[in-house]
């Protein structure tokens, strides 16, 4: 029997109700059209000033926090590439102990880590898994621009199949070097950590305010939480910076990026890409707008479309868990 989970949080109803206060301000040097900067600006608007943040190594460390020009109004600290989860645990544990022992005022202080797909999805996934097993109040946001964007765009475990990166250049012998299917990080973390109450995927700008409300929910539900954001990257994906928001929306509508929340074991589709729901546009409509897929041939589009159709039409929990069902026959 399903029960509808409830979260006590202040819902942001529309873009005009987004908090005006900026806690991530000038001083950074992110690229024009950087969606991750919007992701960053958004989470701290919602979290507010009683927050401590760690930023794992990645483009959003290097581009954001140049010495003597920090854009952060809240306390912020660098952490190592694979230390997203452990940095949040360390801060949350320290603050909890100090509050309990009466060494600092007992108040709610949000603890947030911001890691990229290379840091969170590959190197740091063990530490994030451990963080989600803990009972500390913390939020880990994985900003996924599908590459190691700081080191000149290398493929990670989350790069879309077929994409050109500096580690996966199309060649005469191997037209497709990126042959790994995108790692399902949010789904894996949701199904693997039973006591973690909130895992979500989001996009900073689509649907509007959805991401901000997901951050609100994650910070208010209690315990460790995780949000995976899809962040189009003009430099890495090779498109004009003005299309960042559009590409996020197209990625979601194509069904490549499933948008959902898992709250207390319940899946809520934010954008229901099932045929019975809102449906989906052809993946080609998303892929052909990016230079990184210029070398793809029809057979590759067909393969990607087949994989996407399968995840929505054949999985027991579409878009979330790659289980097609229970075999009746023994093998």
């Amino acid at each position: 029997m399903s029960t509808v989970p409830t979260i006590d949080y202040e819902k942001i109803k529309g873009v005009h109700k987004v908090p005006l206060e900026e806690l991530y301000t000038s001083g950074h040097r992110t690229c024009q059209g950087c969606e991750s900067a919007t992701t960053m600006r958004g989470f701290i608007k919602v979290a507010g000033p009683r927050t401590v943040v760690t930023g794992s190594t990645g483009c959003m460390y290097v581009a954001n926090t140049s010495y003597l020009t920090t854009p952060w109004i809240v306390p912020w600290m660098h952490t190592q590439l694979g230390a997203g989860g452990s940095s949040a645990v360390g801060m949350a544990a320290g603050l909890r102990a100090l509050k309990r022992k009466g060494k600092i005022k007992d108040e709610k202080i949000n603890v947030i880590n911001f890691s990229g797909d290379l840091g969170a999805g590959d190197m740091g996934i063990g530490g994030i898994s451990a963080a989600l097993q803990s009972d500390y109040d913390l939020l880990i946001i994985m900003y996924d621009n599908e590459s190691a964007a700081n080191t000149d765009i290398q493929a990670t475990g989350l790069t879309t199949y077929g994409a050109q990166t500096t580690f996966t250049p199309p060649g005469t012998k191997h037209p497709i070097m990126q042959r790994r299917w995108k790692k399902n990080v949010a789904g894996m973390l949701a199904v693997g950590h039973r006591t973690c109450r909130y895992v979500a995927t989001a996009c900073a700008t689509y649907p509007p305010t959805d991401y901000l409300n997901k951050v609100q929910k994650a910070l208010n539900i209690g315990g460790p939480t995780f949000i995976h954001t899809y962040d189009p990257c003009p430099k890495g994906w090779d498109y004009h910076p003005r299309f960042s928001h559009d590409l996020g929306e197209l990625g979601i509508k194509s069904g490549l990026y499933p948008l959902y929340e898992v709250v207390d074991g319940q899946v809520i589709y934010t954008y229901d890409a099932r045929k019975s729901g809102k449906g989906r546009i052809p993946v080609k409509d998303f892929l052909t707008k990016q230079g990184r897929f210029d070398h793809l041939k029809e057979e590759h589009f067909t393969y990607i479309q087949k994989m996407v159709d399968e995840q929505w039409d054949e999985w027991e929990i579409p878009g979330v868990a790659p289980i097609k069902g229970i075999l009746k026959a023994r093998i």
Partner: protein
Amino acid sequence: MSVAVAKAKSDQSDVYEREELLNGCQAVAHGVRLADVDVIAAYPIRPYTEVMDALSKLIADGQFDAEYIIADSEHSQFEIVKHASSVNARAFGGSSGTGWMYGMEALVVTATDRLPPLFVVGNRALDDPGAFGVEHNDAMAVRDMGWLLCWVTTPQEALEHVLIGYRIAEDKRVRMPMGLAMDGAFLTHSQHMVKVPSPEAAKKFLPQYDLAERRLHPDNPISVAPQINEDWVMELRRQNWEAAKRARGVIKEAYKEFNDVFGERYSAPYYFEEFMTDDAEVVLIGIGTVAAPARTAVRRLREKGQKVGYVNLRWFRPFPTVELRECLSRFKAVGVVDRDFAHGSPDNGGILMHEIRSCLYPAKQRPAIVNFMGGLGGRDLSIADAQKMYDITQQAAKKDSMDGFVTWIGLRE
């Protein structure tokens, strides 16, 4: 000063609350309890693990209040400790051998972030092949990174150096991570009677941790470790360098304050201790538990009229250059015992020997130096081995030639 000492001595009846049979690991656990540590991160590897076993039991039984986190790897363990320390919580971690190396990235940034948690290292040989026994290369791997690094030789010292270690590391003039090393098995797992200080005495000695203007808290919105590149790295390295220099003075202060509370436990120059060296012509110098067979050998050789002594080096970082130079240049020959290796190094010897030769270079009167590689991988260094090392060092005192001055002790050839 004399007044303070006299006063301390008069209260000494209550500075220790009980005497207990503890091994090195258990003694460290009590040190951590008495330091009122806020956050502990644990991950298992022999031989240091028993520290964490003992701490979890103290917490389970309500004898100690701290956050106890079971990490998923040493890298996470050390990062948890680092970040707990950054929000002004006193934090504790530890490891051994390859575990220590697995978390090396985190150990380096803890030092460059100038955070002062304490880590215990139960020294263990590095893989491959797997071996549980002691070697010092694990802890020594952080020697150039801006760490405080000291070795203890008894469980009593181990307990006390948790308090002394935090006192030095957290000092505003220092703020460096503290590595408290002890020989695997020979100290981690050998039991001694330990006088356990009272919480009041520990509190009297060890002030509260205060990272002050560098603590990460909403009331103090700072950015820590932003990207810096070629603009400022040299200046920051220089700050680390200066802190390591200043630490030498703070170490002395800390031991004096410790003595004020607990009685004359340690004597100057604190960084090392000399045994029967007053009229000695030849000494051995070593790190860790090799002190036990060496001191016994000294007593036996003294009975035969030989003028030998032993120097136990406690502090390796910062290196007590001036004091050790002054000490060692009194002797005709010095035998350096290395429980570590430095393959391909200038003299094909051990790490400690190279440090000591460098330290003695400016001395007006330099003793002859010989080097012993011994006890690697936990092999026993016996009293007979120590006597053999004294023999070789005494011969070196008589001749000028430096031929074959590195000897592997106890090696099957």
